[in-house]
């Protein structure tokens, strides 16, 4: 299922999972040998029914679960060539930014600016350099003017966007998002899509929102029962009714995948290493 890589293409790899299997302490196995390869600046959607193991998979990407966390896990996860292990956690977390489902879990500082500054501060930035980084990240998500507000003064959609900014400020190479469009009103959803579509980073998105996946991600991976069961272009996946039905995926009524114009890739920014 996973695309073949040649030596030339290895430098181009943002994420590589090989044989990742994971079981919870009571023996309940969540992942059964997942192989996945994501190239730089690719945008991949992870689709699948509830209970498929999607969030579990995400948590392997920055070492919260998996061997680096000391739990009973098998397989390797590589981020930009660096293997995720106890000793490389710091480096991995600098490269992979995880945006959780509940923005309130990620905005824990008194103001928006403080939250966005938290990551870079841990990376060692101070003074003007820090402020610039914070401003850029807030600007990228359109929240610059609300920087001095406490999170509870923001709407849910605004908090979502700030959560993305907190991770952007760390200049991550890979942005991983768990259900970013859930609970958003249509306008906020579109604003978020605009923000994500313009980012020159690798994106991995877990989502139930198939139209969102289609607009943002050219490639989709279907995860079910802890295994990757399909890996192809998003359009192809959404136009396969049998596939959708087998894995409890449903398009909104009247939605025609062919009619959607996917967001183009952003121009690569010079700041990418």
């Amino acid at each position, binding site marked *: 299922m996973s695309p073949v890589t040649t030596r030339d293409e290895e430098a181009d790899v943002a994420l590589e999972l090989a044989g990742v299997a994971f079981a919870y302490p009571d023996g309940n196995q969540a992942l059964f040998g997942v192989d996945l390869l994501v190239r730089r600046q690719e945008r991949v959607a992870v689709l699948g029914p509830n209970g498929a193991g999607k969030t579990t998979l995400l948590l392997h990407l920055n070492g919260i679960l998996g061997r680096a966390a000391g739990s009973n896990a098998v397989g390797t996860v590589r981020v930009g060539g660096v293997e995720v292990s106890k000793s490389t956690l710091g480096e991995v*977390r600098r490269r992979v930014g*995880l945006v959780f489902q*509940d923005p309130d*879990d990620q905005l*824990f500082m008194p103001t928006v600016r403080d939250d966005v500054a*938290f990551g870079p501060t841990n*990376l060692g930035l101070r003074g003007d350099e820090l402020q610039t980084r914070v401003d850029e990240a807030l600007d990228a998500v359109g929240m610059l003017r609300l920087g001095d507000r*406490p999170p509870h003064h923001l709407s*849910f959609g605004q908090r979502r966007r700030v959560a993305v900014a907190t991770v952007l400020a760390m200049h991550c190479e890979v942005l991983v998002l768990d259900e970013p469009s859930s609970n958003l009103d249509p306008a906020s959803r579109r604003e978020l899509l605009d923000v994500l579509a313009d980012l020159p980073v690798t994106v991995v998105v877990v989502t139930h929102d198939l139209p969102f996946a289609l607009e943002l991600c050219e490639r989709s991976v279907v995860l079910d029962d802890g295994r990757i069961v399909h890996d192809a272009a998003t359009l192809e996946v959404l136009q396969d009714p049998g596939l959708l039905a087998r894995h409890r995926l449903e398009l909104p009524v009247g939605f025609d995948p062919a009619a959607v114009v996917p967001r183009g890739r952003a121009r690569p920014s010079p700041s990418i290493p």
Partner: protein
Amino acid sequence: MGAGHTHGSSRSVSDGLYVHGATPLHRLPAEVKLVGLLAFVLTVVATPREQAWAFGVYALLLVGLLATTRLRPGLVLRRMVIEVPFLVFAVLLPFVALGERVDVLGLQLSVDGLLGGFNILAKGTLGVVAAILLSATTTPRDLIVGLQRLRVPALFVTILSFMVRYLDVVVDDMRRMALARASRGFEAKHLGHVPVVAKAAGALFIRSYERGERVHLAMVSRGFTGTMPQLTAPSPTTRQWAVVVVAWALVATVAVTAVVAGDRTAWLVVAG
């Protein structure tokens, strides 16, 4: 998760008593206000209760400060309602205290009790008003920075800041659970309903605890290794410190005068 708050138009618990403004007290850094408040309150409490005039002076000072903050009097009075329980105690004291009694409007009241009641009334009220002055002009964030700068142990301040941040979230959770119960026809009217409320409290604890774990994961995902970043805020100028020190010196003078006057009268009584 909630579908979002109204943008700051409704008060949230996490705001405390803060009222937005740009008055001198608002601009004063929190560490200066905290020191000033503590010094003021201790001085007031140290003032002998017999010298009622001193408390009048203190009250005038506070009223003056209140005027500079442009706070609505109604707001302050409403907040002073918190005093009511100890007001009750202050009122009962003349009836139940020991010692020499005096006849007041046909009632035999204790002298010590009357003085004690006044003591609580005056000092308690002054303390509440001074505290309101602090909390109405200081954002929670400013307070946290102030405590950090006053060298309160870092872990304590950090825990305090997390608590402030998630107060709203937890109280909201609780309210939503109550709402869910109410819409299924439940109202906690009598003791038989306590188990239901307690179950909700248990669920709230588990939710809050699990959220704490998730917050920790989010922190760690952004590179946290144990030290929280220092929050930035304007530092106090020498002038600002000077103003507060001078103000306290005036208050202290009143207190010392009161003490001396008190001793003098006592001496006179003994001598006479």
